[in-house]
């Protein structure tokens, strides 16, 4: 569902973050913590203020740089305990005043706001970048609706146009991201009007999206961690399916089922083909037809090379953290099986990888 994130590989994402940090001189850069929600009223304000309270107890100087005008009644007393740097006209954060005041940390609510023309930055999230660069920590919040890369998905759910957004890369580069999860408000039991039900469903879809986006970001962090610590083995916290193309594979069914599994598990789908040297013209044309099916389905086919097809496939699978390998039934039976087929090798040596053998 949140598959857009994955178009960027973890390595690319990491490089981007590092490049940015180098440009800034990461040593004295402020630390960014983002609370991600899916609707107003799930408790982001409370979590930000609670975070501020705990930091103040530890002696940190925390101020409010931006807070939505109507905070819920139960958080109002929490706001009143903090120093507030007032917003400027047009709801813009007063960056200059913050930089001048130089607190240890500040709260910036509503990252997706656009500033009116004439301010130092066009958007609030760019203001936050400036504040971080000045060495001030930022506690921020945003709803999943305002992530630029998810705009299409969000508009399909809500039917509303989203105009102000924050790029996903900005959120991914945060030092900490936490989801603020809560059930959507329930429709009254006695009179479940149609509008109410649709409203609840919309909120549930946004809630699911927020959880999945966070899971994808955490997945990037996991890969990043494993890479930094030189850990080769990738463990399966999410499902990753690899479809193996062979001349007689029933690729249509494999692709269809792979897409269903990937969708239901919110996992990833990869397709690979191991190049064969001497291949008959019939096999070649059968293979071309299957590659065409994969391409038509929008899949990127990895072309692998190696002397031992099973070993080549396994090596690729291990590297990608594959959890399910889709292959076609072997043609061989009887005596030929006794010598051990490539399938046997996949089954015996694919540690942590389920082998799904499809009918032809």
């Amino acid at each position, binding site marked *: *569902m949140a598959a857009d994130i994955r178009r960027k590989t973890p390595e690319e994402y990491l490089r981007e973050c590092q490049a940015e940090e180098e440009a800034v001189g990461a040593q004295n850069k402020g630390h960014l913590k983002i609370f991600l929600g899916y609707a107003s009223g799930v408790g982001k304000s409370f979590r930000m203020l609670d975070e501020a309270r705990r930091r103040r107890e530890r002696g940190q100087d925390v101020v409010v740089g931006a807070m939505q005008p109507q905070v819920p009644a139960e958080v109002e007393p929490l706001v009143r305990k903090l120093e507030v740097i007032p917003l400027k006209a047009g709801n813009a954060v007063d960056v200059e005043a913050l930089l001048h005041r130089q607190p240890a940390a500040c709260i910036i609510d509503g990252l997706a706001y656009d500033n009116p023309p004439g301010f130092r930055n066009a958007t609030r999230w760019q203001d936050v970048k400036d504040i971080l660069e000045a060495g001030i920590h930022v506690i921020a919040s945003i709803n999943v609706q305002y992530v630029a890369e998810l705009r299409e998905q969000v508009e399909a759910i809500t039917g509303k146009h989203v105009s102000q957004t924050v790029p996903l890369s900005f959120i991914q580069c945060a030092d*900490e*991201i*936490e*989801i*603020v*999860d*809560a*059930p959507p408000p329930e429709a009254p039991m006695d009179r479940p009007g149609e509008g109410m039900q649709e409203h*609840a*469903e919309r909120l*549930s*879809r946004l*809630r*699911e999206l927020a*959880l*999945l986006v*966070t*899971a994808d970001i*955490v*997945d990037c*962090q*996991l890969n990043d*961690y*494993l890479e930094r*610590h030189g*850990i080769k*083995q990738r*463990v*399966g*916290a*999410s499902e990753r399916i690899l479809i193996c193309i062979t001349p007689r594979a029933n690729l249509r069914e494999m692709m*269809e*089922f792979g*897409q*269903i*599994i990937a*969708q*239901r*598990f*919110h996992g990833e789908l990869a397709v690979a083909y191991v190049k064969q040297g001497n291949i008959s013209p019939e096999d070649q044309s059968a293979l071309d037809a299957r590659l065409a099916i994969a391409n038509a389905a929008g899949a990127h086919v990895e072309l692998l090379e190696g002397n031992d097809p099973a070993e080549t496939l396994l090596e690729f699978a291990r590297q990608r953290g594959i959890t399910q390998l889709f292959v076609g*039934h*072997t043609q061989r*039976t009887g005596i030929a*099986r*006794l010598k051990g087929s490539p*399938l046997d090798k996949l*089954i*015996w040596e*694919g*540690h*942590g*990888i*389920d*082998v*799904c*053998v*499809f*009918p*032809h």
Partner: protein
Amino acid sequence: MNGQRRGKLKIYMGYAAGVGKTYKMLEEAQDLKASGIDIVVGYFEPHGRQETIAKTEGLEIVPRRQIQYRDSRFEEMDTGAILARHPQVSVVDEFPHTNVPGSERGKRWEDVEVLLAAGIDVLTTMNIQHLESLNDQVWQISGVRVRETVPDWVVQQANEVVMVDLTPGALLHRLQRGVVYERGKAERALQNFFREQNLVALRELALRQAAHEVEHRMPEEHPVPSPLKRHRILVLVTADPKTAMVIRRAKRVSDFLGAECFAVTVQNTGDLSGLATADREAIERHLNFARNLRIETRILEGDDVASTLVDFGRRNQVTQIFLTRPRRKTWPLAFSIDPAQKVLDLAKDMLVVIVSDRDPAKP
């Protein structure tokens, strides 16, 4: 009392001790009490955490029940006392807990079932690693075989599952400050379960499961884009200890696909009487395990395991067969064909899934 209304269950789901599940649950309990709801604390595990203990202030606590087992006294939730008190809502910490022998029921989630059946709403807490179908994945990630598990259907029945999130960095910080456990225990925890990569992976698992739970509770079922044929999954039960892993995996896949799931064993006598004691006990245990996960089980009569299994599959429109890995053979033994090999040869019209071992990664 308005008789048979079943209580509502809300689960606060986390990914490790110390993320703040109990705190969050008690916060809600305080809100409910403030809004005039009759609420009690049926069970609370303080773990010496001051901030959490403070959150119980003003809440009515039902005293625990003392149970004598061997030479020690244990304390468990007093389900009978909560039933007698019959509040609107009860707080019950640590949903996956196993009760001490001598308790009325084996598991706390079974006690909670009793409260729900009596019309009492329950707020409870659990960590993702206690979900039965994730047991092997959790083992692979953390190297820890979690013994106290909750069957997936129990969690699916909950009215709400809420994710309680905290970054692993912040959790480790809490642990180092001694907020989660006292110092000695905290240090051991940091060496073992609380390694950063474990926490990050478990957090991802919890987030994905929470997303799945939201989807599962959508107001209406949505058609899948491609016409999805009804899947039926068949698991072969043998005495092989890996059978439990295959059952869990098959159940998880069938839950996500909305498929039916059967577990069968094939015996030439049609029952388990002809087996050696160890094998019979292992198969009985596996069949029981499947039934506890709400999988239908059968004992099929047949001389040949593979052909009996595949015939049964064909007659019952099975689309997928789940098997353990065949034993690796060496050349001289090659003629003794493993049933899994034979199923692969016979069931060329079905999807056959060979479930791999998920041994933990070396730290």
